[in-house]
């Protein structure tokens, strides 16, 4: 009788083991999907980029100031696209970081609980708006307003796209910075108050330096979000590659160029077609460096207060 029970329990144990094994395998598979996808993207980008650089000089690519690969007189200098990308990103960041950070400090240090309950969901709504809507908002609402201030502003311009993109990434900065601020041990704040510091002094002299690693990470993530943003700049910033840092002109970003070529009917496998892979890998290098920096910052400073 007892033997039978043992046997039975063995079977269920085995069954459980198999079940566990299957579950473990599925979990592994799921996490592998992300690695395989990343690897696949890198492989595809490099293969076509390699073919591209066989025909185009890599020096011309990174130093040329004219980008006209679709025209008769082909010029392959990616700098106009890079400046376009950087210009819109800088504008967006100079909107998003001050405002986002202020919101984070206000919510964490000043705001009454009831107000926090209103502001936080509102910020989340901001993050939930589709970027194509932001793009049209920039094009048909923000640009005309800006044109009444700057009469020479062209219909597509870096300024309007950058400003609206800045508003879009405010929630990224504010919520990540707020998390960082909240993670600062309460003892620090209390110690600061105990020393007779005011609220303002506590917030800016104690809390922000203490949370600086998290805040830096939030800013870097916001930058890489702005660099990769496609829809807003494609709609509102224009499609003309121009080597300029003038925010009043129309520019083309790397992402916009990729969209433009993918939507047109450039023959697959042609040199024109391969330009989007070279542009894509440039973009990827940018965001990869930024993400690595944020990873490194996080790792280096995280343990300090824990």
């Amino acid at each position: 009788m007892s033997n039978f029970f043992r046997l039975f329990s063995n079977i269920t144990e085995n069954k459980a083991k198999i079940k566990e094994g299957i579950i473990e395998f599925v979990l592994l598979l799921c996490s592998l999907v992300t690695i395989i996808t990343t690897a696949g993207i890198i492989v595809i980008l490099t293969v076509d980029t390699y073919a591209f650089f066989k025909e185009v000089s890599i020096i011309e690519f990174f130093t040329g100031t004219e980008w006209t690969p679709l025209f008769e007189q082909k010029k392959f200098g990616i700098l106009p696209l890079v400046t376009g990308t950087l210009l819109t990103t800088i504008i967006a960041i100079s909107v998003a970081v001050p405002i986002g950070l202020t919101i984070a400090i206000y919510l964490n240090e000043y705001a009454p609980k009831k107000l926090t309950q209103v502001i936080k969901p509102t910020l989340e709504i901001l993050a939930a708006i589709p970027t194509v809507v932001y793009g049209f908002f920039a094009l048909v609402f923000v640009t005309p307003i800006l044109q009444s201030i700057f009469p020479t502003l062209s219909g597509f311009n870096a300024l309007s796209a950058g400003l609206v993109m800045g508003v879009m990434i405010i929630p990224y900065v504010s919520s990540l910075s707020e998390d960082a601020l909240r993670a600062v041990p309460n003892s620090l704040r209390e110690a600061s108050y105990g020393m007779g510091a005011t609220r303002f002094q506590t917030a800016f002299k104690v809390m922000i330096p203490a949370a600086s690693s998290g805040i830096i990470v939030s800013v870097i993530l916001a930058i890489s979000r702005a660099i990769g943003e496609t829809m807003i700049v494609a709609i509102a910033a224009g499609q003309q590659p121009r080597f300029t840092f003038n925010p009043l002109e129309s520019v083309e970003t790397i992402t916009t160029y990729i969209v433009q070529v993918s939507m047109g009917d450039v023959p697959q496998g042609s040199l024109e077609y391969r330009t989007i892979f070279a542009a894509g890998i440039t973009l990827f290098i940018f965001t990869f460096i930024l993400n690595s920096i944020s990873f490194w910052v996080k790792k280096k400073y995280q343990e300090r207060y824990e």
Partner: protein
Amino acid sequence: MKKLFLFAFLLVLTSSCFKKYDAKITIDGSSSVYPITEAVAEEFREVEPDIRVTVGVSGTGGGFRKFTRGETDISNASRPITAIEIKAAQENGIEFIEIPVAYDGLAVVVSTENDFVDYLTISELKKIWEPEAQGVIKSWKQVRESFPDVPLNLYGAGTSSGTYDYFTEAVVGKAKSSRGDYTASEDDNVLVQGVSTDKGGLGYFGLAYYSENAGKLKLVPIDDENPENGTAPVLPSAASVNDGSYGPLARPEFIYVSLKAANDPYVQKFIKFYMENAPVLVEEVGYIPLSKEAYQIAYERFLKKIPGSMFDDKSHVGVDLIKILRSENE
């Protein structure tokens, strides 16, 4: 009894699926002629439901590839057939009749806020758009001394559009030869949006798009500097396109009918219908109809089955269709 009903019902139902057409006309080719031919085909289907007309879109070149292999009966084209394509047709024993069906004018536009551009000449357009202008011509003042020093922002057709081919050929003198530093888009709405909100903007696209957005844009009269056409700058309109005074910025659109298909009574019916209804339908889809006379001569050309191209691989920029058609018919 019930089963019988059901069976009969099914039979009726399925029979409509396997409708037998008496004849089939296959058409393919240019995307810019497609709206016209499709409009004609739609109307034709209502009059002749037993003739099946299919209209494809594979571009003028793609359409001719199929046509010269004898795979299609009619080919839509936004330019005349080239010598190479004619040769391919000859090798496959395909003969064809060339019929002009409409005009498409190119509109040169500026923003309604632009108060200094009164007209532009073709050589000024060339100065703006030629490849050498890239990075050099950046201000309206460089275009003409009397213009103010306002930045010149350009908007034009994308490189894969037929409009781009035509405009560059008509203005710069060589197809696909253009500066590259302008907002290039196949989506005409992007161009409309860009020019209409840009005081220093200048753009070009098909006249049909201008008519849809007439309130937002200012049409620029063009002086083709050809004294035979009169000396004053001309606005594109049905009249000025038809009499040739709008100069090189008006292009004819064609259909090519294979001679074999032209002997088919159903195709003959279709072409007759096409020529009779084109004046109304062409206008409906936003293009400019030829004159009544031109349609008549073109139809005679079909009836007489005059093969070959009127252009013999020559440029079709700024041609007087009636003159050519007449001389060919004789």
